[in-house]
């Protein structure tokens, strides 16, 4: 192996010394003297129309400077990465945790008292927590566009005739749960006006998208909004969505004063995106040697109250539903559906971990049915050079998955004594 000066050499991370010495400044560490404290009033019900918001008592609390509602949004009151469907402050509640009002106060204690004095009159609507119920024709619409957002299809060959000829057919239903990213740093930020330029410093994974959405919600041209990403204490996809950015921008712009917001763990849990729960019906067909002949998969992803990255997550789910295995006949449909659950968005793997659970479970069941070991089942179907994927891509260059499988099996044999005794 040639010796390179950069390739193959470890590099110390640039921000490492600041992080190990406690000098790195995360969003909540920023201290602007005189900054107002912001707190958000969140819905305790999952589905309702906001009929009236009375802030007169709350405004009397000493220390409270201003209270904002949907009526105070100067621009277009909707943001979102793929579909602009999420309001900064809402007049229709779509999940427990939707933001209804924003308090700006001189201190946190006054802001918390003010939250308890805001009177909100709601007209409650029946909540829909189940994706299958949300997909029914007569289900109440959570958004004007209806509850089914998008559907993706991946088709290859002729699944119906392959199913008729199959020697083994395994059908399973799989559900996966909602997961919170739980980065150790909760959402936080500061904002201030630099003459007519709005400056927002926040923990985020997506400063450029944040800028676009903040400008839209506040009715500002893009060049009057600056987003600065602070050192970010984990994101894992969960900090791709807007969290505190619009609140910070609205208050700083309207009041002309520096502001600060920091979510506690409870608020981070209830108000931010999650991993999509999936509902998967998976049919696998094979011959008696375990060679796959067809898969038919139906996937529904619960994107909750807002789309976030839902459509892209379900597209990935459809594309990756067959795993790293070659299947000649494929029929996959994936749907992204609104419910009144917390919204789901990007999280590590982006829809593929959910599919891996279903696909690999099916592989084990087929192996059992044809009486071969799980690892042999995978050997017989894994992508090789020249394989054609479900989306008809020919893999004509390097394919490492077969080698990886063998290396993983070898390692497993080393560290798990007794494994492989059942292997044939």
């Amino acid at each position, binding site marked *: 192996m040639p010796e390179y000066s950069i390739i193959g050499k470890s590099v110390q991370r640039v921000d*490492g010394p600041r992080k*190990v*010495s*406690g000098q790195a*400044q995360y969003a909540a*560490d920023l201290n602007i003297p005189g900054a107002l404290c912001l707190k958000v009033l969140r819905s305790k019900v999952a589905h309702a129309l906001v009929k009236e918001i009375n802030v007169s008592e709350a405004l009397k609390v000493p220390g409270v400077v201003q209270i904002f509602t949907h009526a105070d949004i100067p621009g277009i009151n909707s943001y979102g990465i793929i579909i602009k469907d999420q309001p900064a402050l809402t007049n229709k509640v779509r999940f427990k945790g939707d933001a209804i009002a924003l308090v700006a106060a001189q201190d946190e204690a006054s802001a918390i008292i003010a939250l308890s004095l805001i009177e909100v009159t709601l007209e409650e609507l029946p909540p829909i927590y189940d994706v299958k119920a949300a997909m029914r024709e007569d289900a109440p619409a959570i958004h004007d566009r209806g509850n089914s957002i998008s559907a993706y299809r991946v088709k290859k060959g002729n699944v119906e005739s392959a199913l008729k000829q199959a020697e083994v057919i395994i059908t399973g239903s799989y559900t996966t749960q909602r997961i919170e990213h739980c980065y150790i740093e909760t959402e936080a930020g500061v904002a201030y006006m630099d003459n007519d330029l709005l400056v927002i410093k926040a923990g985020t994974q997506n400063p450029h998208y944040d800028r676009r959405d903040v400008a839209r919600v506040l009715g500002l041209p893009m060049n009057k909004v600056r987003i600065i990403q602070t050192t970010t*204490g*984990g994101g894992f996809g969960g900090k791709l969505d807007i969290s505190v950015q619009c609140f910070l921008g609205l208050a700083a712009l309207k009041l002309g004063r520096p502001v600060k917001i920091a979510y506690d*763990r409870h608020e981070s849990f209830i108000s931010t995106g999650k991993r999509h729960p999936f509902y998967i019906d998976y049919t696998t067909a094979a011959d008696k040697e375990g060679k796959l002949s067809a898969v038919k998969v139906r996937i529904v992803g619960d994107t909750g109250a807002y789309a976030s990255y839902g459509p892209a997550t379900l597209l990935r789910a459809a594309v990756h539903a067959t795993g790293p295995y070659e299947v000649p006949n494929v029929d996959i449909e994936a749907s992204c559906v609104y419910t009144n659950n917390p919204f789901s968005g990007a999280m590590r793997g982006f829809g593929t971990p959910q599919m891996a659970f279903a696909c690999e479970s099916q592989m084990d069941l087929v192996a059992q049915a044809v009486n071969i070991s799980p690892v042999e089942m995978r050997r017989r179907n894994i992508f090789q050079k020249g394989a054609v994927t479900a989306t008809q891509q020919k893999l004509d260059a390097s394919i490492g998955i077969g080698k990886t499988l063998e290396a993983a099996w070898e390692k497993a044999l080393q560290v798990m004594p007794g494994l492989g005794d059942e292997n044939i």
Partner: protein
Amino acid sequence: MAQFHLEMKVNGKAIALDIDPGLRLLDVLRDILHLTGTKEGCGEGECGACSVILDDELVDSCLILAPQAYGREVITIEGLALNGELDPYQQAFLEVGAVQCGYCTPGMILAARVLLNHKPKPSQQEIARAISGNLCRCTGYAKIVQGVEIAASIKETKEGVSRA
């Protein structure tokens, strides 16, 4: 509310303050002394991001009322690097890549320090137990455990040199 007169030592320096007695040690460190290397992750003693050393013991500063620190000595992450030179724990964490987002790092390093004070050559299991109150969501802990092992060996070498 009546103020509480708090006297304590923080990173070797004597501190005297009149504070609201309801404040947590975490609030005094972060909001009054501006020692923001100590982080808040959960506010209920689950995650360990707010770990500090109180008289040689690792504590969650979100679960300690500030008046409880009266007359005691607190060490935060800012108290480790002397004259800007990183100490063995900090060096070791950097060397093996035990730091990713860095939010749990101050608490992890302080947990390592308390462990090595009591047990200079810990086993991997002892290290895992010592950091079990400190959650990391980025790394999977392998590099952190390795970092503590390396810190132990750097310390041993340094102490060997200084004794010689």
